[in-house]
């Protein structure tokens, strides 16, 4: 997309100067609608595309719930009677079984009971009673496969499409492709688990080689300062009016400086960036202030119970961000691989650790679906539930489960997604994908498709390669589209 030679320089400059908060200002300042029209990624949306870039969009925003540490498919969404039948017997699916850190133990039935739910009759374990009530809105992908069985690379694969660091996150690509819907807020927002970062840390939501403003802006609602540097630190105290006066004075200094240096739009863009910063200072605290939410809403998200309060608050804030036009919100359930377990990596005691993680996630995630639906936002908001790989149907050390990259479940709901369907299936053990093996690339391609983006066309030349979110892979999952 970015050309070469002298002809590209203006475009390249615009590209390097970005399309987010600052870049938008730049575009306005330059009065460059016409100029931008030649640049696919930044072109103002055509009305008939409903905000899409290459074809009409079905959805405008995305919220991704990332279950870090590998959530077990065979204890949540992938029901296998055989595991109950063979519980405790040797695990022998045929062929060599290669596990990440252990020798295969006996077949282990889920500690939770299974029931059918909704009109579609999907089987859900009793670990997730609230999500179970949403199954008719959900499209399940129980035949997900990962090419890596290691948390770091596999997390990257779902987050950025590559097993190695240095690539833009999905939200960064979408920000780059579609731009902002609210200049007062960042386009891509990340809400990490309050206990810490998942494997790879913020590299999961970096802008990679895309301009910096496309990276995920981290908000930590439980921290004393949820957004870094939003406010003046205590070390210097100035009244609001002094701040305003200072801002005006700075603008005057900068305008005089720019007057002596005509023809350099960066100087104007930087002046505008201070105005945008001031707007962000006003809009961000408003989003994080939950005092206007009804008690019923707070309860819906589980803010009244300790175990669900953290993830629930993040889900509720996500809804408020989406309402205000943030394109992509990523919420993490699960921190690093430390001990005691604070993510889904239940090698030692699945009932205990998945019990806690599942319960903390279930009510808030279901609330997000229901709440978005009530507010009419689910129609054009995609909810994507992701984990980096699954867990083995056999036990590890008696009570835990080891990694399983051969089959696991992700699911989608909302804008343009058909509810109550299941695409693909695993084998009778939930050990390997059997029908329609599905990759993270496919999921990424599908999300981009619903946003009106052809995943093969959203590319950026980097280091000699036209890079895209889906590398050289990915098929849109037509069967789950509404």
């Amino acid at each position: 997309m970015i050309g070469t030679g002298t002809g590209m320089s203006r475009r390249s400059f615009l590209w390097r100067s970005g399309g987010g908060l600052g870049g938008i200002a730049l575009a306005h300042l330059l009065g460059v609608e016409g100029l931008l029209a030649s640049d696919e990624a930044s072109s103002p949306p055509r009305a008939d595309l409903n905000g899409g870039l290459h074809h009409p969009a079905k959805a405008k925003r995305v919220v991704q719930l990332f279950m870090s540490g590998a959530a077990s498919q065979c204890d949540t969404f992938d029901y296998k009677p055989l595991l109950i039948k063979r519980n405790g017997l040797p695990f022998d699916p045929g062929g060599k079984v290669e596990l990440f850190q252990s020798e295969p133990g006996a077949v282990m039935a889920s500690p939770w009971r299974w029931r059918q739910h909704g009109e579609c009759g999907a089987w859900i374990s009793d670990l997730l009673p609230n999500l179970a009530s949403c199954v008719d809105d959900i499209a399940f992908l129980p035949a997900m496969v990962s090419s890596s069985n290691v948390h770091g690379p596999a997390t990257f694969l779902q987050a950025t499409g590559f097993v190695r660091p240095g690539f833009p996150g999905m939200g960064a690509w979408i920000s780059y492709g579609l731009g902002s819907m609210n200049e007062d807020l960042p386009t891509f927002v990340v809400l990490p688990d309050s206990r810490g970062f998942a494997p790879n840390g913020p590299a999961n939501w970096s802008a990679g080689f895309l301009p910096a403003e496309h990276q995920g802006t981290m908000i930590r609602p439980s921290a004393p300062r949820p957004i870094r540097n939003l406010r003046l630190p205590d070390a210097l105290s100035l009244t609001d009016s002094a701040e305003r006066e200072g801002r005006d004075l700075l603008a005057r200094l900068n305008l005089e400086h720019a007057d002596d240096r005509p023809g350099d739009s960066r100087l104007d863009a930087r002046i505008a960036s201070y105005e945008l910063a001031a707007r962000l200072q006003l809009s961000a605290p408003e989003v994080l202030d939950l005092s206007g939410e009804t008690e019923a809403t707070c309860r819906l998200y589980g803010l009244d119970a300790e175990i669900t309060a953290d993830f629930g608050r993040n889900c509720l804030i996500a809804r408020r961000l989406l309402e205000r036009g943030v394109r992509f919100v990523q919420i993490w359930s699960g921190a690093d691989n430390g001990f005691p377990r604070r993510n889904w990596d239940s090698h030692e005691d699945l009932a205990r650790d998945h019990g806690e993680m599942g319960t903390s996630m279930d009510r808030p995630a279901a609330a997000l679906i229901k709440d978005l639906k009530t507010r009419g936002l689910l129609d054009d908001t995609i909810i994507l539930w992701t984990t980096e790989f699954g867990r083995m149907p056999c036990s590890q050390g008696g009570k835990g489960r080891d990694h399983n990259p051969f089959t696991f479940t992700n699911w989608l709901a909302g804008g343009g997604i058909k509810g109550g369907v299941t695409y693909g299936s695993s084998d009778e053990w939930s050990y390997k994908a059997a029908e329609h093996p599905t990759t993270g690339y496919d999921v990424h391609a599908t999300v981009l498709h619903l946003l009106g983006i052809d995943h093969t066309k959203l590319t950026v030349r980097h280091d000699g390669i036209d890079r895209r979110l889906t590398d050289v892979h990915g098929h849109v999952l037509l069967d789950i589209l509404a």
Partner: protein
Amino acid sequence: MLVGPLILLGMASAGPTADEPFDRVSAILESRCVHCHGGDRPKGGLSLESRAGLLEGGLSGPALDEDDPEVSPLLDAVSGDEPLMPPEGDPLAPEQVEAIREWLIAGAPWPDRVTLQDRRFDVPWWSLSPLTRPEIPSVRATEGIRNPIDAFIRSRLEAEGLAPSPEADRRTLIRRLTFDLLGLPPTPEEIDAFLADDHPDAYDRLVDRLLASPRYGERRARRWLDLVHFADTHGYDKDKRRPNAWPYRDYVIRSFNRDLPYPRFIRAQIAGDVLFPGDPDGIIATGFIAAGPWDFVGHVELREGTIDKLKTRLIDRDDMLANAMSTFVSLTVHCARCHDHKFDPIPQQDYYRLQAVFAGVDRGDRPFESAERASRRETLRRRRDENRSLLESLRSQIDELTKSGRERVEAEFASQMRAIDALPRPTLPEESPTNGYHSAIASSPDSAKWVQLDLGRAVPIEAILLIPARPVDFPDTPGFGFPPRFRVEVSGDDPSFEDPIVLADHTEEDVSNPGDVALRIAPPSGTEVSARYVRITATRLWERTNDYVFALSEVIVRSGGRNLAPEAIVSALDSIESGRWGRDHLIDGADSRHLLADLDDPATLEAIERRASLYESAERTRVAELARLRTMLVPPETLAAAESIEADAIAVAGDLEAMPEPSLVYGVIPREPRPIHVLARGDVEQPGEEVGPGALSCVPGLDSNVDSSADEGARRAALAEWIASPNNPLTWRSIVNRSWQDRFGIGLVDTPNDFGRNGSMPSHPDLLDWLAVEFRDSGGSLKALDRLIVSSATYRQASDHNEDAARIDAANRLLWRQNRRRLEAEEIRDAALVVGGVLDTAMGGPGFDLFRFKDDHSPIYDHDDPAHVDPIEGRRRTIYRFVVRSVPNPFLDCLDGADPNVSVPIRNETITALQALALLNDPFMIARAKDLADRVEQGAEDAPGRIEEAFRIALGRPPTDRERAELASFATRHGMAAACRLLMNTNEFVFVD
């Protein structure tokens, strides 16, 4: 077979005339189509190599519609606004499409027996053509020309009807030059001195001063470290610290400051350890190869023999070779991992030959020391090895002589162990949740590992019991991880065990594995030992499966009739903190299988002690019997010889131990090269033929072959020589282009890491080649190159806009003016330190942390902890910070700091609201604004005077009357720090004209 004309024609549009429609079309097909639509497996089944292929067509039918040629699928595919074909690169030019149309209408004539071939690479490519020194062009207007650079630039400007800009004023020049060469602002005194210097060589002397400054290397190194993606942690999951990465960073700074000749700089970084033995910098420089990310879990925790292990190593080597090729020769070789390079003549084979160059490279801490010390160490090690082999031969003689007797002794020992196994155990029926302590995995048995207990205070030690491991998640192995050689020491109050009391020493001879019987270690009877620290050191590790570990399930420390271990703090040289293993499981009251019974219960203790003492006596008997056999059966002179060698071995070991530890650098650890196969689609599960090491075959005039029997070091040395060869045109063009970019913000080639067909063409090819030859032939001095560039009138131009010139060349690729640039992240931070008057210019050494660090299973780097945002040691230049890969420094990151996960040849230059917030509100910036306020408050009496001073320090100029008045009024009402904060947020502060 067509030969001459087609090759000469090359791209169809480039040909002078081509009358025959076929000649024009075949040239297009050969340069754009046949590489996919040809060969054994043509894409879509369509081969365009012959007329037959055209007619037969592919999966979607014939490519030619003979009835109505204008609707032929071939024409359709290449026509329209968004043509389907070719899928890569620019669409065909309209005249090319037209040529195809005419040809099809003419019935697609095709001479007999003519087969087309892929000729994409037949046309010479600028970056691969040999370097020759171009003529310096003559120009009409010679006024103001300072050196040959200006002649090259001027002649292009003249050709386009452009004129250069006048020289920038002196204030601009010194600010530009100081930032460009040092990455720092000039001081008001330096500015004044330069303004007052009316000697004709004032500028040249300024350049000399700056090139001689140690700050120069720090500035240039920043760019280099961006390129080689250096950081101080591994990256990925469990992003561990690399405490010894910094010596490489210092090496780069040092090399630039010393103006190390570039060829030597290349050779050292690829193979300095091999090419410059005895020079510590030779080893340190290999930090280049290890600079990039490394997956700790994949390399260390993942089991050997798994598919994921192969993937991990493939990607690891890919990182090394991409680093070498991108950095030094500006080619995107890494694109040929899954298939032949799509744009450049780099076959997959070449890619895997480069993998083979790095097939024997592991990353790790490599020792280095001075030549003298290294030689003494070498001598001692040789003596140690000689002793070992002599001893080995003597021992095998002794073993031979005592063979039958020994078998009897061992059988007796085994039978006693069986008897012990039948005795009651000190455990409860409850299952243990943990296995115990497990060291990191070592590749050799002879690395020492220790684990130790801190009892909190010195206590009398009655006995120490070591319970071996017998993990449940491993095939049943009593005595798992129990080291054949070890010692147990205690220490009164010194946790470093400099002067320990040794309670048990089994480091000279292997002990038999105790199975799961506890070992009892006690001070010699009658002695009283009091200690706070207990350390168990394995000096020979237990063999697991082709690797070596040290594990124990439980340690019990008896004192005053009680077990004090559970209250201790356990530390270890290293530890696997994963699953059922962990340091703290060493004292958790459970062995690997069961909970231990109450240890304060005499019955429990008796069970343990009984088993322990039986083992002890069996082992004692075994050792004594073996000794008796030796005296009986072995000639005394043999025993004496063995004894004297043992004595010497102890002396040598002592001498070795007494030598100071060598320093470490995170660099190359050589090993036996692993076999490398060409991988179909880059898939480790589809290996093809095995390949040996080699370089790129596409560079003419250079032998890319490396002796396939070359050992690890020879492979890298060969690659280093290939890169550093005066005949490698890529190398010299690449580095002068980077230097040019550093001085103008954009390279003569604006894709500095890609000189292939997917990259850009040089804006001034002759200038690039002239610089490359000049640089190469004058010995590769980067300082001389810098001096040449910044001395040119082209560099010294003003950066002012010019409406007329912009209409012709808006992007200023022809350099009719200098480019204004925004400061880079580090420059902004460093400038704030200079302006605040607090820059600490101390050089080198370990990096400073700009975060709270908590070591853990997954280490934590918290950049938001207020106590760590502005530490006192952080007043050093930003290049000395400790760079974390997984969690970037948010302040620098938002200012477009380089991502150390990838090579960054050009920094993005974005302008965002978050940057405004960072400069306005980051505690670091606030602190510097206060520093500046303090400075000027000490310097001047009143607010206008102070504002005057602040302008001169921060912006390098006095304020206008209005600026002075407005800022002074603001400062009077809201404080000088608030006013200084505004100055440090101006465009003028962050841009250089």
